[in-house]
């Protein structure tokens, strides 16, 4: 079976499970909202201050929410050893990883779609006129986050202290992605908004490198 077809079947399974339990989305959205609201109390969110600190706060919220959401991604396959059932199926191991990545991307994108308007109101910033470019930056940044996070979720799923292990492994690796995402977002919030193509290219490169690496290593990632 083609990897894309198997990944689509698994994506549908993930969406079905999530929209039935709402475990990941609810916690992720609430956590990210709490972070954004708390930060808004920490300093005076004038337009100038928000342009300076806003992108960093926004991406920190995404990052923390993402690491919270990615943790159970593989861990919840352990209750009935369903990951083994997927590994026994005649599909490419990368399809399992890809299905998870796509699902995590959808979940985080939904969380961001709720969070960004709230952020714009609380921090007195406007994304009108740059919406398309912002979606590009959010898309590339989120993709990098979920590719890396899904891989580390698979690695840490068997660990006893996985809740602690995932952020410890993930956050340092994501530092370059965080810097690039913040810089690209900041360029869109400037008084004269202009997308910084260097950082966008960096984000695209990051995504390609980590997606290729996960494809090459997926056999080992999913092994016991």
């Amino acid at each position, binding site marked *: 079976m083609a990897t894309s077809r*198997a990944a689509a079947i698994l994506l549908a399974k993930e969406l079905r*499970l999530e929209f039935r339990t709402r475990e990941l989305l609810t916690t992720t959205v609430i956590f990210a909202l709490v972070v954004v609201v708390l930060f808004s109390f920490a300093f005076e969110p004038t337009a100038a201050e928000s342009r300076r600190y806003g992108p960093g706060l926004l991406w920190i919220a995404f990052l923390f929410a993402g690491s919270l959401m990615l943790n159970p991604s593989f861990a919840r396959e352990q209750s*009935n*050893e369903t990951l083994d059932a997927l590994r*026994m*199926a005649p599909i490419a191991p990368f399809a399992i990883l890809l299905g998870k990545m796509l699902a995590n991307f959808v979940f985080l994108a939904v969380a961001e779609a709720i969070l960004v308007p709230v952020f714009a109101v609380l921090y007195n910033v406007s994304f009108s006129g740059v919406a398309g470019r912002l979606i590009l930056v959010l898309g590339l940044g989120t993709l990098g986050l979920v590719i890396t996070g899904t891989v580390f979720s698979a690695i840490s799923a068997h660990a006893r202290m996985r809740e602690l292990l995932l952020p410890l492994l993930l956050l340092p690796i994501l530092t370059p992605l965080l810097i690039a995402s913040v810089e690209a977002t900041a360029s869109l919030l400037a008084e004269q908004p202009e997308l910084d193509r260097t950082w966008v290219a960096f984000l695209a490169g990051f995504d390609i490198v980590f997606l290729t690496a996960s494809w090459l290593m997926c056999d080992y990632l999913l092994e016991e």
Partner: protein
Amino acid sequence: MPASESALTQRSAISSEAEQIALGEPRANSQPSERGPAGNSIGITFENVEKRFGSLVALRNISLGVRGGEFVALLGANGAGKTTLLRMAAQLVKPTSGNVAVTGTTSKSEDARRFIGFVGHSTFLYDEMSAEENLNLFAQLYGLGDYRGDVGNALTACGLSSRAGSLVRTFSRGMRQRLAIARALLHGPRLLLLDEPAAGLDRQGLAWFGSTLERLRAEGCTIVMSTHARNESLDLATRAVSLAGGRIERDSGIDGDPAELLAELRSAQGGEA
């Protein structure tokens, strides 16, 4: 009524729908290449296999060839290595040294998995999905074309058609086990690996399971079943292999009679069967 007679009566009286709807039967619309050579059974060989988990040696120097169509009863106490051996056969665990190969098919590893069915200690089912959704998912992953009819038949055969839309988390242990067996047989495997498959099954479930095994054996499906308890289905075995401490302790052989080993198992358990 003696227990064995009662069980036999139950087996013969098993619901007619389960008899008529043969679960795990090779699919009529599947290509010959999907079912091993000429639709026949496939086997498995272990050559000098050793498996370590850290400092623990789970399997030591295992060499075993299971021929197509054999029904091998894998016996041994807890910790003897039965589960590790079966998980290795299911390609879930790689040996530390030695080779494991599925024979009778030239398919590469990924495709060879379509010939294998495995019932393990866990159910391999999603609790938050219904029985039907679980079977639909695995039917799709195994590439079954028009799978809805197969899924319906599987649910009827295992006696869960009335609960097809219920979430698995609402099922009893026995119902989950029946569904787990149905999941393993859905794609018509030619090599069936069973690890304590009767756990949690009630008498009706045992009767259904026994008749299913009988039919699969008659069709030439290779079966390797582990148990440390007396199980009526063991009477179907054509060979018995006992493990102890990760080694093969005794093997009745390909053309041998497993009766002696099985009788020892029976007497070791106080003749409870």
